[in-house]
């Protein structure tokens, strides 16, 4: 009995240490601020995640190339991607792009995933929220 308990305790500590060591690689994506501060891995592919900056999406006329900026409201990273976007890719919504950082500071993505938020609401409620936010903005502007 005592041996089992001791064994369990040791295993628990070991798992804790392993998790601690893996902590950095458990990060699924890096924020634009981390990329700007050079906390993201250099010279290899990684993922950058944040919001698609409103008004930043530019589609090419004659190819599937698409350019947009990913922001965490502090820093932004310009992203270039060739391919088909997921349905939930929207301006102002979450996105995770996998690719490489180029020397010019832009990010060449090979895969773009939409990141959904935890809010679920019917279209009418979403419309109401939008109206309320617009109203608030006008008040602030005044």
């Amino acid at each position: 009995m005592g041996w089992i308990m001791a064994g369990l305790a040791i295993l628990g500590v070991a798992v804790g240490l392993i998790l601690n060591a893996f902590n950095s690689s458990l990060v699924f994506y890096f924020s634009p601020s981390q990329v700007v501060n050079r906390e993201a891995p250099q010279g290899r592919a990684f993922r950058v995640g944040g919001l698609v900056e409103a008004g930043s999406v530019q589609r090419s006329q004659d190819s599937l190339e698409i350019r947009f900026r990913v922001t965490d409201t502090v820093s932004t990273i310009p992203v270039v991607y060739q391919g088909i976007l997921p349905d939930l890719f929207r301006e102002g919504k979450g996105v995770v792009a996998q690719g490489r950082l180029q020397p010019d500071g832009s990010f060449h993505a090979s895969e773009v995933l939409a990141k959904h938020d935890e809010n679920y609401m019917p279209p009418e409620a979403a419309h109401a929220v939008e109206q309320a936010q617009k109203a608030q903005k006008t008040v602030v502007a005044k």
Partner: protein
Amino acid sequence: MNFYHYAAPATFYPLAGKLWPWFAAIAALLGLIGLYIGFVVAPTDAQQGEVYRVIFIHVPAAWMSMFIYLVMAGYCALGLAFKTRLSAMMASALAPTGAMFTFVALWTGALWGKPTWGTWWAWDARMTSELILLFLYLGFIALQSAIEDPRRADRAGAVLALVGVVNIPIIYFSVKWWNTLHQGASVSLTAAPKMAETMLWGMLIMALAAWAYAIAMSLLRVRAIIIERERQTEWLVEALEAER
């Protein structure tokens, strides 16, 4: 009330036999109501459209996958500490249901992930730790069936189950601790729910149905395990005679 009275297989066997049909009926009833609310009454989601309706199955299944593991580990701890036969049997009875819910959570998650995220699977912390949970359940079942002597099988399984408990808080808090593709919790004990009321009701009723299903299945399965392990005892022969 004497706890040991109900912990005796001889008392629990007929009790489980009386209880499980009731829980199965509750599960069927609540499941029908929950699915009706989820697929007919609840409104469409503003962002995702109809595909969000997978949450009525995905979220209750994911909750149960974690909760059943905690209950199973609790029984394992009781079995190790007090050498009660029934707790080890309950742990073995819960494992397949837990594995089933884990698989359903992963599978429905993949079905949802493709249209919304754009991928079936990503190795983010939430999904990876949930996959580890499936392997823990399967490992528990495999380890127990690999050892012939039931008492040794119980003890080995219990140690594995208890070590695996560390994975449960990792699954639950992964979306808070690390950047994950999986979104944060819409419903938690500490914050107001972040979803429309009808959607929430559908999900909670489905969760209750999943509870009732898990209880019914584990009671049914523990009866089979009791028959298998206590087949040489006099009380079981009498009980089986009486049921005939």
